[in-house]
Each structure stands twice: as structure tokens, then as C-alpha cells.
């Protein structure tokens, strides 16, 4: 065997090996290029899939806004940047797209009373699984959302479907007032009527009440019964159905007031209707829709804000203050009691439905019913749902 090896003098093997190596390298190079190309193409497909998931994500947030829990969370935010413990953002937890092609998560920022930014990042399923070298694909999209407030045609501080008696030192004022300490209010609105009634409605006074507005009393033949039940595209029943607080009629005494737990607004307490006199406090941004079923409610003292719907009659006996929109199907009575007079900032609509025996509103005891566009707007904004901004709401975020 040793002799045979000594006799090997050719180069065929060496040449063959060199040729194989060169050809192999070229083929490997071609394969490498091909593989890279395939990877790029697959990544491109993943980018497209991620884009689709991200786009679904931003619209999912809009679609889910009207759910009571989401609405309460989103509308309860403070404009960015909020001072703790108040929050200006909500994290959108990871959700799988309905197409099962990926998942998205993100953040919802509150920019001001009307505007929000939905910031969503998405990854396709394969990238999300972490099996792609370099992290795979992802896409980030934004949507500017604007609150679609309820359309309530407010034309007076008090809109009444029955008779009205204003006595003592009570005041009904159709001029626009900005609640003390409230920020971000729009310019003052033009003067509204003090009391607006139907053609056959009456307004009588005794003592030294104040009736202000343009005009102080407006008899409006266009004011129909339906005006108290249908507001643009929303009905009273829709509002009641979306109430965040529903309570039976009762004597609330002075139990209505903000409830704070560990520095945050405790919205689980049904007698917590926000804190209008502390607008920067934990409950200052809480504007619930409150629905009181039945009739004969009595409130004496403390405060609330938002939209107050009363199926029956309401009797305010003391220093209770409410900021926003009040819609009463029965009648309203205010009377003395407590250390401060009753205050309503915003607008009060009292239908005085014939179904109730008493269809006369008695405003006495030094009550102040003042038109406030800011209070109405904030209440409606906080109870409205978000929708994509009408123009330029779609943003590719980087």
C-alpha cells in the first residue's frame, strides 16, 4: 500500500476538489441570495399583515368606545399631562385580531376635552412568536379621535313643558356663565332665554326673583313634547340605557358627593356624581350619566355633574349643586334649607309630563339656575363617544 501511494503523481483529485469548492461557493452564494430574497419578501408580507392588524386595532378602540366600561374609562381621563393620581392615558391591552393574523396593543391619550390620540402597535403572528431573526415586522398607527357629543339644542337656562312659579330671591339666568375654577371653556355663548316654555306655558313671579336672558321668558310654539325626549339622534331612553349610575327615586338627603379611594375617584359609589367644585381633583373629570327611576326624589346638599335624568319629579331642598344637563320628566321644586341655595349650572329641561299630578315647577329658596355652555359641553363631551376625526385623523406613526 505504501508503494502505491508513492506512485500517485497526478493533480486530478486536487483540481476536482478546487472545482467543487468553487462551484459549491457559487451555488451557496446563489442560494444565499435567493434565501435573503425570500426572507425580504416574507418580511414584506409580515409588514402588510401587521399593518392590517394595526388598522383593525385603532378602529376597534373606536368601535368599543360606547361600551359602558370603556366609555367610563376613556371619558374619565384628564388632558395630557395630568397630575397624579389623575390619569391621562389608558393602556390598550394586547388583543388578537379577528383574522387571527396578529395582535395589537397600544395607548389612548387624552389631548383635551374633545380630542384623543389612539396609538396602536401591531405585529403579525409569526413575528410575535419571536421566531424571526431581527424581531420580524411591526407597524404603528395612530388615530385622532374626537368626542361626538350628544346633540341637545339648548336655548334656555330652563326649558319647561308646564307652568312655572319663580318666587323669593330665586334667579334664572340665560346669560352664559363659566363655572368657578373650570379651565378649557369655550368663548362665552350668546345670551339664551331665561325660561323657555310651550305656547300655553306660564311663568309667574312673586317676591323679588331675577329673570335674566334674551328674552327672560320665551314662549316658543316650536317647543314640542318630543323636544324633551328626542335630542338630535339620541332619545331619552337611549341616554337612560347608557347611564353609568342608576338609582331608584328616594330621599338622598345630603349623600350625593365625591367619593375618593386611595387618592382616586371611586366611581363604584353610586352617590358619587363627580366633584364640580374641585375640577382638578380626582373626581373633577368624572361626569356620569345618572338615571333616577321613579318619582319623588329629594336631594338636600352636596354636588354632582354630568347628565341627570329623572323619570319623575325632583325636589331640591338645600345647597345641592349640579353642573351639566338636567332632564326631568316630572316637575322641579327648589326650596330653602341648607347653608347655601341650590345651584344648577348648564341647562335644566323639565317636561312636566301630564302623567304626574303636579305639572308646576316651583323655583324658590334662593335657587340659581344659570345657563352655562361650558358645563353643558363638558357634560356632553364626557358622556359622548369618540369617533375618528372628520378629516386627517389617520396617522402613520413611526
Amino acid at each position: 500500500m505504501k508503494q502505491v501511494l508513492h506512485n500517485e503523481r497526478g493533480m486530478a483529485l486536487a483540481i476536482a476538489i478546487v472545482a467543487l469548492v468553487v462551484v459549491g461557493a457559487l451555488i451557496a452564494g446563489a442560494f444565499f441570495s435567493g434565501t435573503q430574497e425570500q426572507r425580504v419578501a416574507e418580511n414584506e408580507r409580515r409588514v402588510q399583515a401587521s399593518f392590517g392588524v394595526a388598522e383593525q386595532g385603532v378602529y376597534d378602540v373606536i368601535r368599543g368606545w360606547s361600551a359602558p366600561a370603556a366609555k367610563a374609562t376613556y371619558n374619565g381621563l384628564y388632558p395630557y399631562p395630568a397630575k397624579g393620581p389623575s390619569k391621562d392615558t389608558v393602556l390598550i391591552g394586547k388583543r388578537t385580531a379577528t383574522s387571527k393574523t396578529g395582535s395589537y396593543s397600544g395607548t389612548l391619550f387624552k389631548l383635551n376635552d374633545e380630542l384623543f390620540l389612539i396609538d396602536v402597535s401591531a405585529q403579525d403572528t409569526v413575528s410575535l412568536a419571536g421566531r424571526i431573526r431581527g424581531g420580524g415586522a411591526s407597524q404603528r398607527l395612530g388615530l385622532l379621535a374626537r368626542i361626538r357629543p350628544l346633540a341637545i339644542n339648548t336655548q334656555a337656562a330652563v326649558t319647561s313643558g308646564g307652568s312655572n312659579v319663580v318666587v323669593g330671591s330665586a334667579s334664572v339666568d340665560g346669560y352664559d356663565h363659566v363655572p368657578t375654577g373650570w379651565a378649557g371653556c369655550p368663548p362665552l355663548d350668546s345670551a339664551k332665554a331665561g325660561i323657555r316654555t310651550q305656547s300655553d306655558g306660564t311663568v309667574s313671579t312673586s317676591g323679588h326673583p331675577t329673570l335674566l336672558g334674551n328674552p327672560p321668558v320665551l314662549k316658543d310654539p316650536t317647543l314640542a313634547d318630543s323636544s324633551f325626549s328626542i335630542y338630535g339622534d339620541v332619545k331619552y331612553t337611549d341616554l337612560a340605557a347608557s347611564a353609568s349610575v342608576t338609582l331608584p327615586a328616594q330621599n338622598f338627603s345630603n349623600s350625593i358627593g365625591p367619593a375618593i379611594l386611595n387618592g382616586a375617584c371611586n366611581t363604584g359609589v353610586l352617590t358619587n356624581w363627580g366633584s364640580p367644585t374641585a375640577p382638578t381633583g380626582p373626581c373633577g373629570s368624572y361626569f356620569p350619566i345618572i338615571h333616577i327611576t321613579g318619582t319623588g326624589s329629594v336631594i338636600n346638599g352636596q354636588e354632582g355633574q354630568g347628565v341627570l335624568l329623572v323619570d319623575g319629579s325632583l325636589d331640591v331642598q338645600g345647597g345641592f349643586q349640579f353642573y351639566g344637563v338636567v332632564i326631568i320628566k316630572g316637575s322641579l321644586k327648589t326650596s330653602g334649607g341648607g347653608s347655601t341655595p341650590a345651584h344648577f349650572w348648564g341647562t335644566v329641561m323639565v317636561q312636566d309630563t301630564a302623567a304626574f299630578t303636579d305639572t308646576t315647577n316651583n323655583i324658590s329658596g334662593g335657587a340659581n339656575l344659570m345657563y352655562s355652555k361650558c358645563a353643558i359641553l363638558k357634560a356632553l363631551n364626557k358622556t359622548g363617544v369618540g369617533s375618528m376625526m372628520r378629516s386627517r385623523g389617520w396617522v402613520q406613526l413611526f
Partner: protein
Amino acid sequence: MPLLARRGFTLIELMVALVLMGLVSTAVYKVLVSNQRLYLAQTQQIDLQQNIRAAATILPAEFRELDAADGDITGMGPDSIRMRAMRQLAFVCNTPALGGGIGQLDLTIRATPMYGNRLSFAAGDSLLVYWEGDPSKRSDDIWLPAQVQSILATGAVCNDSGPTLNQGFSLRMQPNWINNAALNIANAITRGAPVRGYDKVVYRTYQAADGNWYLGQRNPAQGGTIQPVIGPLIGANGVTFSYYDSIGAVTNLPTQVAQIEIVLRARTASPIRSGGAGVQAYKVDSMVTRVALRNNPRCGPGSMPPRPCN
């Protein structure tokens, strides 16, 4: 065996060896050349496909954010489009002074959060500012154009937050609409209002100095010379834009464009042999895609078809 006793190769042996070596070398050369051609052809094809893919990524991303009804398309043709390309999203942090005949707009813009490929401002930047008007109405909300005249200040300019979040830019502008009393009203631009920065860009096909046709972008904010984006193309008709309104009919009105169709026909940079053919030729590939403009008005003025807002 002594060295002198060795007899070496015969001529015949040498000739046979040379012939064999020649045959082997020729075969190896052929394999090498063919592999190299294959490699070059493959590289060119990859470049071609990358071009197509780049077009499918870049152009739709630019077009999606357009609001044609609000004048984002300022010129359009089959081989070119002149438009506002969105580059920036930021937010106002102080309610600007408006109303009372004020003659300029001083906007304070928060540094964080800010999105886009430009995270600062400079004189000459073009902006669209969200004008809220009456907050109780959505129907009067519009975006108003403004150009940055000067940077008044940077740093701690936001007065609504503490030291970590008060960083921003104070910009002075003098837009034409400031003279319109219906727009220049107090609190019409609110704190938190979005501001979008844009570049006025042109995409068009052009023939470069190397004789090839490209789709180029001209952006005055970046020097104003046309830069190749995609190419080489098959020729002057390498990119075709078609414009459709919201019901899918072809339109030549920039404000009614709801979809833009892009047809791209690109070719390799040089001729290649493909499919075992002996003749070299340019390899051509193409792509068709249609992009829906996401930011057109959904209802009210400018919506197509006209749809009232509720």
C-alpha cells in the same frame, strides 16, 4: 533510485495530460462563467424585485395620509403627482392668543409626544393646525395652513406641566387666515390641538444622466433637486398614476380623488440572460396597487359622495 536515472514523462504522456487538463479547465471555466452569469442575473432580478417592493411600500404610505378634499393634491397627471406629504404630528401645549384683531399666531408645541421623521421645527416649515372653533360642534372643525416664520424659543415653554414635560417649541406664524375675523377668534385653537407638518413634494418619472428612467422625488425642503426613488423603469411610461373618486370612477379633479392606482413597470439595470436563453435582454417586472386615501372627509363638505354629518 538515483536522481539522474529518472526518465521523466514521454511526449505522449505530456500531450495527454495537457489535453486532459485543457478539457477539465474548459469545463471548469464554463461552469464558472455560467454560474457568474446566473449570479449576476439573480442579483439583478433581486434588485428589480426590491425596486418593486420599495414602490409598493413608499408610495402607498405617502398617499394614505392625503386629504384630497382639503387640497393635499396640488397637481396630478399620469406620470406625476404634486402633493403635501405628511411628515410630523405634534400637539399644542398652550392655548394661543387669538381674537381681538391679533396679527400673528404664536404656537407653543410640546416636544413629547411628537411623531414622524422630523422631531423639531425650523423656519419655513409648513404646518396644518387643527382649528376647533366651537367645541360643541364637530362640523366647523378644520385644518388651517401656516408656515413657521421664526422660532421664538425652545425648551421649557409649555406652561401646563412640570419640568419633565414642559419642553417644547414656541413658533411664530403669520398665516393669511389670521386676517379673517371668522377664524381669528379666541380659544378657537385649543390646548392639545394636533399640528401636522408636511413637505410639498413631487413624484414624477424622469430620465437621469445615465440614460435610465426613474421615479424621482423632488422636495424643496431637501434642496429641491430630484432624487431617484425607484428605478430603472422601462421608460417614460414606467409609472402610471390613475385617480378614482369614491365611487370608483376615474376623476381628473384633485379634490375628488379617493383612490390612487399605481402601475409600476421596472426593469433590470442591465441586460441579462434568463431561462437559458443565449440572448441578453432586460428583465421586466411590474406591479399594480390601489391606495385608498384614509384622511378624506368622512362626511360634510368635501366628502364624496356628499354625505351629511350627524
